């Protein structure tokens, strides 16, 4: 009995970490399943719901053997790269304006940035399609790019803005005091300190773009992106190569994110080099520690 009550006590004390562990496992299980099944042998090369046929590396060595899949992945990468470049530049400029400047229409601008994030993707996709139908716009890579830049902008603004709010402006003032022109200050002080935030925003935009299915499905025409390809084949059987490429993509993005996180911490430490300001002694005030 004693051991039972001790076990119970241990369980109670560690309930929170155990719960958190289970929650994290819940989040990671599908990723593990995707990776494990990329090694699963199947008779027809299509994903099956079991591992009865053992394991194989066959699909990893023939990862790029399906031309339709390659083409879709290439389209997605090209689209994500372009959409990321455009939305990161545009969004960063907006974030700078919002944090650094006071101007008429600021609240309205904020609203215009928040609402797309609060709009269900079907509605965004449907609304864009409505406009493209009206102007009989040819659907394809161009319309996809327009849509992807549109839904990425808000996220870029939010990420870069949060970085700008914690920005120490004394560093820029110091540069200006030392005779740097505004442009030189921006290039040598502001941009490097802002870089981790911009990088994080770009990474977010990239993963949003490469992952998007719902909005793309409305505006793609005959252009096929990676998620659209997967959707198309999901009805008649997913080739195992899809899992292989998804696992590769996961690894690549995970590495990129780790690098950004690492860089961000370093930049934070660098920004903290400035000594804490000395508290100004006030006569008669109680001493605080």
């Amino acid at each position: 009995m004693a051991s039972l009550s001790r076990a119970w006590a241990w369980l109670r004390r560690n309930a929170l970490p155990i719960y958190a562990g289970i929650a994290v496992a819940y989040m990671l299980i599908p990723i593990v399943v995707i990776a494990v099944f990329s090694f699963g042998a199947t008779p027809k090369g299509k994903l099956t719901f079991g591992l009865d046929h053992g394991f194989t590396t066959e699909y990893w060595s023939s990862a790029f053997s399906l031309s339709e899949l390659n083409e879709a992945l290439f389209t997605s990468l090209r689209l994500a790269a372009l959409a990321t470049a455009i939305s990161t530049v545009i969004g960063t400029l907006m974030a700078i304006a919002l944090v650094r400047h006071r101007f008429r229409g600021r609240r309205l601008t904020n609203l215009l940035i928040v609402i797309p994030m609060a709009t269900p993707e079907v509605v965004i996709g449907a609304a864009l399609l409505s406009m493209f139908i009206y102007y009989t716009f040819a659907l394809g890579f161009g319309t996809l790019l327009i849509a992807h830049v549109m839904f990425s902008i808000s996220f870029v603004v939010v990420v870069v803005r949060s970085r700008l709010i914690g920005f120490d402006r004394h560093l820029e003032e110091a540069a200006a005091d030392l005779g740097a022109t505004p442009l030189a200050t921006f290039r040598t002080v502001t941009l490097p300190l802002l870089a981790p935030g911009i990088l994080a925003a770009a990474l977010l935009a990239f993963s949003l773009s490469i992952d998007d299915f719902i909005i793309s499905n409305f505006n793609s025409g005959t252009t096929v992106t990676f998620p659209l390809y997967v959707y198309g084949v999901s009805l008649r059987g997913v080739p195992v190569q899809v899992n292989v490429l998804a696992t590769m993509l996961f690894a690549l993005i995970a590495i990129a994110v780790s690098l950004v996180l690492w860089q961000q911490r370093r930049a934070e430490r660098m920004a903290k080099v400035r000594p804490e300001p000395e508290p100004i002694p006030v006569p008669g005030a109680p001493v605080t520690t």
Partner: protein
Amino acid sequence: MSLKQRLVPYWLLGPGLLWLIIFFVVPMYFMGELALRSGSLTTGYTFDWAWSNFPDSLSGHTEQIGRSFFYAGTATLLALLIAYPLAYAIAFRAGRFKLLLLFAVIAPFFTTYLIRTIAWKTILSDSSPVVSVLQTLSLVPPDGRVLATSGAVIAGLTYNFLPFMVLPLYANLERLDLRLIEAAKDLYSSSRQAFLKVTLPLTMPGIVAGVLLTFIPAFGDYINAQILGGTQQAMVGNVIQSLYLNQRNYPEAAALSFLMMALILAVVTVYIRFAGTGAFMGDEDEETA
């Protein structure tokens, strides 16, 4: 300030604002215009103030709308129950594993949404160990299935939008001043009282943001219902997608998306009023003002 200087923010905002206005606001107008047309696919749709599209689109799909509310609501509640302890553990109990755990929370974003959902289909398929465990526990009848039930769709929605719940909660909890909890304990509150009267109210902004960020995309989603559900699990998103892309009944589809958008805006407004916080939109404003 010179005129030139005052124009700076508008130059910075220009490209982004234009993009959002032309490709988000204007499309909403065209969706409204489309919703007021009548006709058929063969004869073409002409604009004639067909207000009846709105009640028509609603009356035909009350079942799916109700289902969307129920599924998204349940998934949001489940996500909150899973995410709150997890975010709490990451913020206060994780120690040096903090970054790793945060990484695990965002890891699902590194794989394609669609492929993750297909992975759930594998996990919940009839022959999977998960289902046999559920059958042994009598949570599922011995010959019953999990796939193609409401439960599967809700599980998928909960999983897919869980990070959107964890991240705002974590951001909020991390800024929590632990001294306030200590103070409550010094004043003889029990742990439970301290949680209910100090921690919970102070993390309300995080809860509000998390609930909105989970509920809205879950409400509009149709991937989970399509892949994990059967014909009896269709949500509003499925209807809109099929009306637009398969049946090409544009007026009814546009009317329905318009109503969905209005419905969500109404829910959000009421919810923010009720929850008594402008944190979702005004937070950054206060910080920067």
